[in-house]
């Protein structure tokens, strides 16, 4: 498998497994944070906008 | 001398102040802007003298479109508001001297004459923070005596003035109009300009609900 002899070798990354996986973990977390925060922003906007639209239509 | 506003749209705090609003100030005319608190009186005056960007619309000065880059308005407008830019640590004379540096059209009379007109003769070397509120106000208003600018834009010029002071200012406005100048102002007083009818503009009527 690639430049590794076995799967456990791949997980351990020589002796640097902690650092490599920590880095990729950090990257993943920040990627997910970006997507989720943008999605939440979008949801919040539409919830507020629908409410406002209903309010405005209700008054007319 | 004309200032013209066309298609003015202005929104503040989710509220539309003006929409499709137009205004025309002619030579030798007094225009009084009236309206409730928050109807946009100050905002309108600030837009007129170039102190607000929060609008869309076209402003013409002497028939020439102002694009916001070069502004000939600044040579011809006197703007006096309730804050009026009087420094407490400077004396009345120093304050007026600086205002004359800023605004070259403040050249009608000498500083001493203007101070005498507003009843501050003898107070010229007192730091303004030791004057009363009304006296400080009069330091700012001394500019009206100094100014030869054709258009005056006055935001609540009569606050903190006594009856006599208001009468004097009204006479001053009348004189200015008589000489061919124009005035647009906001005030809660019943404005009486001798020998001239005041054209009112009611902002409560133009407001969009």
């Amino acid at each position, binding site marked *: 498998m690639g430049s590794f002899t076995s799967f456990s070798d791949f997980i351990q990354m020589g002796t640097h497994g902690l650092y490599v996986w920590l880095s990729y973990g950090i990257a993943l977390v920040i990627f997910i944070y*970006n997507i989720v925060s943008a999605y939440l922003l979008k949801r919040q906007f539409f919830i507020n906008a629908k409410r406002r639209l209903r309010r405005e239509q209700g008054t007319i | 001398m004309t200032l013209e506003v066309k298609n003015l749209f202005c929104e503040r705090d989710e509220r539309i102040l003006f929409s499709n609003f137009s205004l025309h100030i002619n030579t030798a005319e007094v225009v009084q802007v009236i309206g409730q608190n928050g109807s946009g009186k100050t905002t309108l005056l600030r837009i007129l003298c170039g102190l607000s960007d929060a609008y869309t619309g076209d402003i013409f000065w002497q028939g020439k479109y102002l694009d916001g880059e070069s502004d000939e308005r600044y040579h011809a407008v006197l703007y006096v508001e309730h804050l009026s830019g009087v420094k407490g640590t400077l004396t009345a004379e120093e304050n007026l001297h600086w205002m004359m540096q800023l605004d070259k059209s403040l050249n009608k009379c000498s500083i001493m004459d203007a101070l005498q007109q507003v009843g501050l003769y003898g107070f010229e070397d007192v730091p303004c923070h030791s004057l009363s509120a009304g006296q400080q106000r009069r330091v700012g208003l001394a500019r009206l005596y100094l100014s030869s600018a054709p258009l005056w834009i006055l935001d609540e010029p009569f606050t903190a003035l006594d009856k006599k002071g208001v009468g004097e200012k009204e006479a001053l406005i009348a004189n200015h109009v008589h000489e061919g100048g124009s005035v647009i102002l906001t005030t809660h007083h019943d404005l009486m300009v001798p020998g001239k009818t005041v054209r009112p503009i009611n902002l409560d009527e133009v407001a969009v609900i």
Partner: protein
Amino acid sequence: MKIKMPRWFYQLASPKWFYDITGMLLPWFGLAAILLLLVGSIWGLVFAPADYQQGNSFRIIYIHVPSSILAQSCYMMMAIAGAVGLIWKMKIAHVVAGACAPIGASIAVMSLATGAVWGKPTWGAWWVWDARLTAMLVLLFLYIGVIALNSAFENKASSDKATAILSLVGLVNIPIIKYSVEWWNTLHQPATFTVTEKPAMPPEMWIPLLVMVLGFYCFFAVVLMIRARIEVLEREKRSDWVKKVIENYGR
């Protein structure tokens, strides 16, 4: 100062056009981002050879370098978009600039965190005052300033212009900051080798890096478009087309 621009430039200034075109582009960029990031990270983690000096910790390069590059170009994009907004009074440009700031800051955090993690096996400490890391830290501070200023104004129009000016001032300063930090670094820490600068990297190492860089850019484009689209809707909420978009949403 004002140069006449081609027609598409002004079309871009129309919020509806911007909303429609980004709506079309978004899925493609999303797909590209997923593919490139997956391919690049598997390639980098599994198939790229280990570095003869640093061993497998070298694989952090596939996160650290793309995030560093992206954090810098994101700032540049923010400042340029701000300048376009100031010069041509284009609201969409300000929208894009505003959307850049939080993304860029998070990517700068990623670059710093992965740099720190990489530092542990390489230098034996979680933080080293390395020139690149320090400059990235300053870049993060610049982002924080822009975000703080942007949220401090109540009036959108003035907050747009103020942040545009601040990011332009920052853009002028970035080269000076980088130069000064590098100079300071050589003065205080001579002969520390920099991990990210390899004289000759074999293709099986740098091709996955390139893939990752492209993936990061695509990802950035995706988040940027999502954020900018919401901001466009927010600012245009009184117009009829936005009301239609809102009514049709979730049906």
